[in-house]
């Protein structure tokens, strides 16, 4: 059995947050005890509502923040023991907003060559060549090499961001909602590009999204996150056909396909996302859960194996 590219073991991130100006700092558990494995070459998707901790998890994978506890391993080697620059060669990010993820003061050439500069790879000519190749790979015309982000459309910017992420030939791409700031027509272009590049560069994707239709389209495995915890982690087929956790089911219900005959979904979960500083006791989802019982209010459900994955719900399995 091969070692998984990414392994997360009980990863937790707690932020101390100042409570306005009036109260002492509160502890915010952005990510609580997440364990995941991502196999080489697969697309592992992470879905969840805003504030559920998806980006925080991504940041920890990228080494931008340290987990409060738990361990992240790349190819079996803990990240904490690896040089940050070494990690950077293996894992690269693609961010949500192509407007803020590119330095507006830099030309496309400088942007894409930045990793090479940071790692002191090549001469300026060889870098120039690499940049041109990357432009080809992401489908941008070479003459855009001197353009600035301000002169490009959102889709083009996202292509530059992807080119920059790929220039070091990493193994893993962390895509934090790479298309949610884009229009549907552009989104399709980027999604197609990502699928192509995956094949061409033999990439593994950790793909964060809240759009379940997109996730279903390209993910191999899907993890559903709620309030910092993974509530369900399944293969795609299994999740989309027989989701076990009520929250996963609710999310699936909210997928609005453009089919006028269907009308609005009938079962909509009530209430809104809880305050992460004062999470509900027991199962964090119980206040909104249609099938919650006494036990859910008190006890935190542990993950139980279900078909092709695990789910953290007492009524699962």
């Amino acid at each position, binding site marked *: 059995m091969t070692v998984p590219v990414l392994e997360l073991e009980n990863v937790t991130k707690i932020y101390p947050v100042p409570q306005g100006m009036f109260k002492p700092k509160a502890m915010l558990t952005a990510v609580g005890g997440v364990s995941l494995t991502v196999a080489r070459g697969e697309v592992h998707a992470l879905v969840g509502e805003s504030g559920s901790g998806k980006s925080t998890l991504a940041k920890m994978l990228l080494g931008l923040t340290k987990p409060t506890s738990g361990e992240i391993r790349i190819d079996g080697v803990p990240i904490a023991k690896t040089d940050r620059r070494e990690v950077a060669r293996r894992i690269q990010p693609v961010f949500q907003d192509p407007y803020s993820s*590119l330095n*507006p003061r830099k030309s496309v050439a400088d942007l894409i060559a930045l990793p090479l500069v940071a790692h002191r790879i090549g001469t300026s000519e060889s870098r120039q060549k690499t940049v041109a190749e990357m432009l080809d790979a*992401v*489908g941008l*015309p070479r003459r855009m090499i001197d353009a600035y982000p301000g*002169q490009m*459309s959102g889709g083009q910017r996202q292509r530059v961001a992807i080119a920059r992420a790929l220039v070091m030939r990493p193994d893993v791409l962390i895509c934090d909602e790479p298309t949610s700031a884009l229009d549907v027509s552009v989104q399709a272009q980027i999604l*197609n590009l990502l699928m*192509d590049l995956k094949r061409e560069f033999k990439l593994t994707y950790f793909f964060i999204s809240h759009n379940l239709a997109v996730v279903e389209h390209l993910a191999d495995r899907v993890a559903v996150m709620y309030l910092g915890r993974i509530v369900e982690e399944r293969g795609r087929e299994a999740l989309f056909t027989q989701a076990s956790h009520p929250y996963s089911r609710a999310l699936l219900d909210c997928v609005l396909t453009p089919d006028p005959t269907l009308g609005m979904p009938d079962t909509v979960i009530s209430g809104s996302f809880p305050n992460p500083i004062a999470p509900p006791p027991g199962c964090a989802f119980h206040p909104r859960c249609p099938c919650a019982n006494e036990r859910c209010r008190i006890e935190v459900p542990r993950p139980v194996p279900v078909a092709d994955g695990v789910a953290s719900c007492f009524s699962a399995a």
Partner: protein
Amino acid sequence: MSTTSASSATATAAGFDAVPVRRSPLARFTKRAARHPGFMAGAFILAVILVMSIGAPLFTAHDPYAQDISKRLIPPIWHPKGTWEHWLGTDKLGRDYFARLLYGGRISLMIGAATVLMSGAIGTALGVAAGFFGGRVDMVIGYIINVRLALPVVLVALAVAALVGTSLNTVIVVLGLLLWDRFAVVARSTTQQIAHADFVAAARAIGCSTRLIVFSEVLPNIVNPLIVVATLEMAHAILLEAALSFLGLGVQPPLPSWGLMISEGKQYMFFSPWVITIPGVALVALVLGINLLGDGLRDVTAPDNRS
């Protein structure tokens, strides 16, 4: 390469053609600047003063220090008693007022520039450090800024000047050490914004060193507001120098500083008002020019609100 990505490549190329290629940032800047009346007015005033004072010997044959006390307080040319020899008249010691005005402009400009270089370096360093590192560093620097703001500038500058002795250099150093606060505040808040931008996170994820991030990602993005602050602080420094000189603890005679000229001319202001009007108007023009330029720069370099 696969066919799909090739097709999307050509597709994008076509789309790009559909969008008129936009002008380069510099061209855009010049175009916007040219349309900004305030900016242009400021640039014009400043250019005139700059040329006149730096090229002072070209515009006047008089030595600004040469006194002839038999030719004191000659009025300027528009006065019935004016002479072409001294077309802005002479001061109380018979020195040519126009020559003194031009050479005095050098002092103002030099003080403004030197002060801003110094305070800009201090303030930017502090502000960037505070904004970039946040946390405790930010707290300490924020505290330093507070202390600085609590000190009354004029008073402290006067006291220090009196302590170490007044001279041109003292004025520059004292003002340089005192006027960094706005740089720090602006650098701090803009850096804070930038430090949270995704491209800084991206640079980190790429493996850039902190130094590289600060110098290549953060600094280029905060220079615009800092340049604006620099112009406004330059105006501030020039006014403060004038005030200090006016109070007798700035530039010392016989150096011709505009503030000093007003201070010296004060004695004659009731019966020979031009002795304070001329340097006063010069001072107002210079500061106005710089302010207009700074305000214009702020507008011109402001990002498009919708792009």
